[in-house]
């Protein structure tokens, strides 16, 4: 059981600033995900917490105690690596028992704990094997078992599912989440996969270029992205962005692009106009909030079908307005061919507006 505080963490590699003044708290028993593209500083942040990297600035507290100078072995954190990092010269049993042996636990207790964890992860039949005799999924379970067996204060996981095939990954996602809730151990989980972050996390930290973009629940990230980066990174397919000018004309708020002009809901438009640093803004609409319109209306835009991607239960339709490609997501099937002229419309209550200059959200 542990809480973790990170304060103004900075880590540089030569000229590059990998982590730039990152601060956050992880509550006791919380599943916190660090989400970001490669090079965003998420793994470096995790490694600083683990003690594998020395921060250049800032403090890390575990249960209120400063741990910057505590070596990894004394932090009582267990880490699951992307490559699993199983010891190739040891059997599965010895791999799992290794951290307990180092703690000089009595043999009988080591044995019972290894067997208990193996049972929990359904790898009891593999205990006598060497890591290279295991499949990727089995190796993954052994790596988890080695972390769990110690009953550490914090779990650190560095993209633990990224080496699994897609089907197993979806399965392990749920399994891992359930396991974490059962054990109640504070967990920090690094991933670049926003679906993993959304499905598993209690809260998510979105990182880009070493800076926290947003910290919030998956719901908040999805529905109230604070900037363009989060809006574009969270959600699949990603949000559509249209660049245009925001103007007030005859008591109406209009969004004008070279291809089309839309009338925005008055209240939202007013707020955006007041907050924006210039008149050029970015309009964001998620693919699931764009629809194919039956007939021309005040909010319909002419478009050309580019590609139809049927996924069975839903269809992703790629369409072109001008020379730019956008996506909409439709429940069920859509019967269009590339080149078909269509009308698209959107849900006016589900739009996002961002400042072009700062990238900040204007509505939430």
């Amino acid at each position, binding site marked *: 059981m542990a809480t973790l505080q990170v304060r103004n963490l900075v880590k540089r590699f030569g000229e590059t600033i990998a982590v730039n003044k990152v601060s956050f708290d992880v509550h006791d028993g919380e599943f916190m995900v660090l989400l970001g593209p490669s090079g965003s500083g998420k793994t470096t942040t995790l490694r600083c917490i*683990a*003690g*594998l990297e020395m921060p250049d600035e800032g403090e890390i507290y575990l249960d209120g105690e400063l741990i910057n100078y505590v*070596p*990894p*072995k004394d932090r009582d*954190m*267990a*880490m699951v*690596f*992307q*490559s699993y*990092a*199983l*010891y*190739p*010269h040891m059997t599965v049993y010895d791999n799992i028992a*290794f*951290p307990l042996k*180092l*703690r000089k636990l009595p043999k009988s207790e080591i044995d019972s704990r290894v067997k208990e964890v193996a049972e929990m992860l359904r790898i009891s039949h593999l205990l006598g094997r060497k890591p*290279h005799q295991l499949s990727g999924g089995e190796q993954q379970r052994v790596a988890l078992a*080695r972390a769990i067996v*110690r009953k550490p204060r914090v779990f*650190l996981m560095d993209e633990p599912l990224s080496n699994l095939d897609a089907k197993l990954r979806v399965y392990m996602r749920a399994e891992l989440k359930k396991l974490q809730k059962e054990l109640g151990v504070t967990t920090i989980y690094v991933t670049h996969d926003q679906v993993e972050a959304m499905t598993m996390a209690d809260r998510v930290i979105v990182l880009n270029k070493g800076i926290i973009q947003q910290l919030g629940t998956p719901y908040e990230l999805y529905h109230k992205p604070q900037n363009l980066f989060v809006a574009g990174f969270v959600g699949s397919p990603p949000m559509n962005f249209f660049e245009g000018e925001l103007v007030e004309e005859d008591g109406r708020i209009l969004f004008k692009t070279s291809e089309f002009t839309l009338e925005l809901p008055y209240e939202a438009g007013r707020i955006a106009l007041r907050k924006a640093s210039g008149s050029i803004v970015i309009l964001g609409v998620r693919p699931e909030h764009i629809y194919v319109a039956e007939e021309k209306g005040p909010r319909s835009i002419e478009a050309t079908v580019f590609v139809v991607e049927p996924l069975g239960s839903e269809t992703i339709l790629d369409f072109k307005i001008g020379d730019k490609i956008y996506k909409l997501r439709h429940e069920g099937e859509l019967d269009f061919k590339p080149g078909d002229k269509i009308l698209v419309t959107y849900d006016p209550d589900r739009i996002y507006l961002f400042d072009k200059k700062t990238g900040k959200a204007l509505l939430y």
Partner: protein
Amino acid sequence: MRRKAKPTYGGSLAFKIGKYLFLIVAFVFFAFPLYWMVITAFKPEQEWTAFPPLFFPAPPTLKNFYEGLFLMHGLKGIMDSAIIATGNMALTLSLGMLAGYAFSRFRLGENLAFFILSQRFAPPAAFAVAFFILFDKLGLLDTYIAIILAHTTFNLPFAVWLMKTYFDGVPRALDEAAMMDGCSPLGAFFRVVLPISTPGVIATGALLFMFSWNEFLLALFLSRTAVTPFVVLIPKFYGGHDILYGVVSAVAFLASIPPIVIITLLHKYLVRGLTLGYVKGV
């Protein structure tokens, strides 16, 4: 349906014959001196330099071995070489392993690593006199320690680089996992990295042993009468003005057995150790 003929390595019959012919010539070229040494070791004195040469000793004798080992102190020479080679191997390997690991894992800079390697560029002869004076002042001349230290100086760069390259192939995540599991950095090295690197350690150790076993110049400079490695001893096998070819061959034959045994036993590891960087699947 006709199957396309599989392209075979080797091609035409003429090429095959040429290939085997070349291999036979090469084999004879390398094996003949060994063969000559072995038969000379068993030849009685009058046959050593007989003309036309005899390709098989008639009758074979063990006299050369007796003389070489016991009367000319060849046994002590081989024992001394064994002590020096083992000492060099143990010392160089222990230092080389730790330094190689440090170079592999910590940012020590390429310059320092290159500096260590550059020690190997200088010819041993350049240092021989300096070593002689140094060990003389220290009162270590004609001791095992002197030759072991001198050999270590020259073999260490090799050991450091070989071990570094080997450790480079061991994923860093393994050390880190060990540290997260409760090891100190040195503990991670001894409990995880080193056991995985056994083939590399064995290969490096074997090569170090053989370098020292066969080294002549420094052994000559630093030894006198108390310590006499066989390489220094053999050239002294004279009887009056004659070279005692049979005795030389007998001791040389016995002295070449340890390296041959090592190579035969550790063949697998040596190939792996020399094809550096191959540690996939670790």
